């Protein structure tokens, strides 16, 4: 199962974090900076840490890091990350790191459609975006 999803930049600043297992607020910052350190020190895509495995992908200056349990299929999560980015790209029509930063709420809403309780609940792009586009239309309207 998926334990958390993080988006961090090269400087180690968190751009988005979503935990699917309770983690103390005070512990999160330390964990995140450690994860960034680990990710930056490697050029590969998977890292193993004691309590969980990390799967991460780098998009320009942005890292998307996913913590998963031992039994999870790393490669499927690896592709899930890419699917997520493709969805963001579709929604924001060419997503860049700044877009994610400035639309924290919407990125969260998209993520919530894809992953719940640490499980992949939807991967169909148009279905993921359906609720959000509906919201946008109502808000704009």
């Amino acid at each position, binding site marked *: 199962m998926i334990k958390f999803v993080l988006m961090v*930049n090269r400087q180690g*600043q*968190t751009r988005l*974090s979503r935990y699917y297992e*309770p983690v103390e*607020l*005070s512990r999160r*910052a330390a964990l995140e900076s*450690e994860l960034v350190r*680990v990710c930056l020190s490697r050029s*590969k*895509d*998977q*890292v*193993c*840490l*004691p309590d969980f495995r990390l799967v991460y992908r780098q998009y320009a200056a942005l890292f998307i890091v996913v913590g998963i349990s031992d039994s999870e*299929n*790393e*490669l*499927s999560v*690896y*592709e*899930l990350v890419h699917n997520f980015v493709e969805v963001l790209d579709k*929604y*924001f*029509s060419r997503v860049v790191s*700044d*877009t994610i*930063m*400035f*639309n*924290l*709420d*919407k990125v*969260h*809403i998209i993520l*919530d459609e894809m992953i*719940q*309780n640490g499980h*992949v*609940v*939807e*991967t*169909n*792009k*148009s*279905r993921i975006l*359906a*609720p*959000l*586009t*509906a*919201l*946008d*239309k*109502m*808000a*704009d*309207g």
Partner: protein
Amino acid sequence: MSDVVEKTLTALPSLLSLDSQPGSGKLSSTSKLGNLIRGITELTSKHEEEKLIQRELSSIKEQVASPNTSMRQMKELMVRAIYCEMLGYEASFSYIHAIKLAQQGTVLEKRVGYLAVSLFLNESHELLLLLVNTVLKDLQSTNLIEVCMALTVVSQMFPKDMIPAILPLVEEKLTHPKEIIRRKAVLALYKFYLIAPNQVQHIHNKFRKALCDKDPGVMTASLHIYLQMIKENPEGYKDLTASFVTILKQVVGGKLPMDFNYHSVPAPWLQIQLLRILSLLGKDDQSTSEMMYEVLDESLRRAEMNHNITYAILYECVKSIYTIHPKAELLEKAAKCIGNFVLSPKINLKYLGLKALTYVVQQDANLALQHQLTIIECLDHSDLVIKRETLELLFRITNAQNVTVIVEKMLEFLRLSKDDYTTIDLVGKVAELWFIETMNTVFSLGGDMMQPDIPNSFLRLLSEGFDSTEEDRQLRLFAVDSYVSLLQGEPGRLPQRFLQVISWVLGEYSHLREGLEPATTLRLLAKLLDMKHTSSETKSWVLLAMSKLCEGPDCVSLAQELSERHGGSLDTVLRQRVQELRHLSEDAELRASVLPRDAAQEPLEVDSSLSFLDGFVSEALSAGAAPYKPPHQRQEELAQAKALSLEPYGLSLPISMSSCSLADRQSPTLLSMSSGLSGNSTDLSHKGGSTTLKLDGVKRVWGKDGYLAQKEPVEESAQVEVPSPLCSPSRQGGADSTHSQTPTPTPTPEPEKEKQQLASSLFVGLGSQSSVCLMGKSEQTPQRFRRKAKGQGSSSGASEQISNSHYSTQSTVDNLLCNNLLDSTVTSDLAVSTPEQTPQLSQEVATTNGTCDAEQDLIEETDPGNSPSLIRANSTVTADPPAHKDPDRPKDSCLSSHLPAELAGLSHSEIIPLCSSQNLDLSACHVQKEDALLLVIFIENSSDSDIECLLFLSQVSCVTDSPVEAVRSLSVSVYQYSLMVKRPAAHVALAGTASYHMALLTQSMLVSCFCLTSLLFLCLGRPLCVSTEEYGTLWLAFSQDTKQNLALLNDGQDPLTATLDVLKNKLQLHVVDIIGAEGIVACRLLQGQPCLMHCRVHAGSLAVWLRSPVPDLPDCLLYHCQRALQEH
């Protein structure tokens, strides 16, 4: 999708829409959030960040509290608060406002309110109750988007106790016309199932309906519930197997709408989910498994596209195939798939392959064998993750034979990754936990036959610990737990050694386990005392442990009881221990000072001169007591006083071996071990066991840094020739390369060879079929042999000769050079052994049978006997023509001229004919070199044609290049072998085969065995030059001792000097010093193991006391001393 918004779209005019892009970030980037983010991005220090965020938070706090803040502004504030919390700064003041926003906001504001709640609050937060009403209201809303939001938040978090309030509404949504609502309702029910399964029990049939929903999304959502339920109770859902199989079939067959595809793979995550469910259902269930073979095969076949996601599916597929009831055909395909993964140059795939292998080896260890070379390469992979996964894999295949190599590798990894985060921690633990478990196995199996230094080193390792105290604690705790449970089982079956280890560990460390009452441990230990088989040595270990543990009134009464029961024991040591236990249990203070806790690490000074008793002694002396006399002196005086010969009884030393004849030398090791309880010298070491272990001179197998690699086995394995199991990895570039099972005969380059050695040591003992060759040390002979045979067979066509050797030796030859080669073929009959009688060689026979049509087994039996000759020759027995030459004909003179030039100058022993047949004669001699003992074999060809001869000797390494050589007509070939001794033994037997092949006479063969006796000390022994003082320190350090009386030579002058001179000359001993009637002598083996001898003239004989760190060395030396003196 348009359905979802139809109502709202009609209700709201979309005239104000400024940009057509639905989610442009333009507006936000100029917003306050944008400013905050930019501000933070520009900061350089943590301190500045903190200041900025605090300022931000107080600004947010002020605004959210203001009644003038609009919902739109509130939404903006919430996002900023989320941002602050994300950076680790608590914004708890905003929680209530988030709930308010969810309650009062419209559409996007509401959604952000819900989002903020789900991010801020955890599931048990009390504020969550305030959300229930909002959710209830939204669920009943006519606006589908609001229903959607409510269901989303419910499936993320909801107070458990409030489920009944909304359950009917959620259930109702299961029949909603819109798929998105149905889907979200299913997910909400899944959440309910997770947090309160009994609440949703009544709607299980509704789950089935969801599973059969016409919309694939709803069906997919229901799989989450099913996976969970099947995990908990696979039996209950077997009837759904067919449904899952059908769904998977449809998905794989591309029956889903195109938008479910990901990179043209149909719904990959759904496939994975289904495969997981199927593997749970098919596990240990043949009939259910049979239903899914077809679809699994289909999945494997379809997932051929070269994309990560197909690999992810393949991985899941392979896992399923290995989880369910096996089907050979599928297993084969899955294995091939794993092979492709492992061989892939892509790190991710390699990793996945290793992970799959790790999973699979638990079912089928042979698969690891197929990939052993790749695995070896992965061990040295630059990527730590790959390394770690490889170690994980090795961890799974660890068995008794490869255990040391694997641990060595693990520790190597640990050392490398010292600073690399906590990976070290994990691997360390793995190794430790494994360590205890393996040692348990080792102790249980090895039992009392093992060398005493193994448990000693083990205990030392445990007490010295590693670098981190926490790890030490864990390790000890684990040991305690493991031992307590062993004792609760059937301790009667455990070997004495193991029981001693258990006692010590429990005595030292059982206090680490909280909740384990000392009395409980005591009772467990006391049980050991009552067992029939417990030796008195073990009993005293047990009692000592009990003394350490005795605490509290329970224990005191137990101690009382024990002292009553065992106080009358005949064993004095035992009686003393019981007394100690009783006294110490009554006096806690005394116990704390005598047996301090955790003092095991502190060095204990052993005052061997017992100087602390000086006061007591002088007091006693002044009170008129007689001065102390050592036992032998007492005896001497006694003998003189009574003028009676006490010779037959020997010495009153703890262990006396009255005779040293061959027949009595059964197990000297055991005897000297059991001397541990009496005797003053050994008492010290026993006492040491209480606080620190006496370990000097003990062979260090485990050190502080881990397993201490020993050179010899490595050298030995360097000769293992490995039929490469697959194509060499260097030639297997891509993941698509297929592998065949046929060994490739290509010569392997040097580094390759090293890897193969490693492979041979890592994968030894895995699997039993020899479709892939096993490369155990114990099988190197057959291995090498078979290859040779094959090579020859192919070159000489139909006329091939395969020879076979079987050797039977008497049990005295048990401790041989390479005990692994001979240990199971000890028979004492002279009969010709059949393959069945020599199980170890049966495999060899089997393999040779396959390649030759006619073969003869000729067995030679050697009798070590009392022959003084160094090499005893045994004439050959050939079935066909009888030997036509007199084997005893001296040919020394002619053969010695054939000695190689570099050996010509050295002294060589008499050249002794070994065996001969028709035109071929074999002779041998040994040559002493400074650093080695060489065995030289001469092969003489007396025929007038060339003979191709293959000579093979087990246990020795050949110095000359190739053992296959053509012996020219009427000439002599010379082979050199260097002899190494691993363990000292009185006798060494060398068995060998020589098979030859002549142009005219085909299919004849020759088997020879020869035995080397006495070679050890005469040739391998070297003087050890030490001073008297050094001798003294060494003496105390050595643990193996043997005492014996030897005949004294009476050549006139000083008998002691004369005797020692003889020994010195014959056995190359070094006489350190002679003082009066006592003399000290030292020697060492070629490899450096020392042996010390203390001699004392007593009653016409020489009382010798030998000590060495090597178990059998004293006995061995003693034997040769006897022989030397006899021969004199």
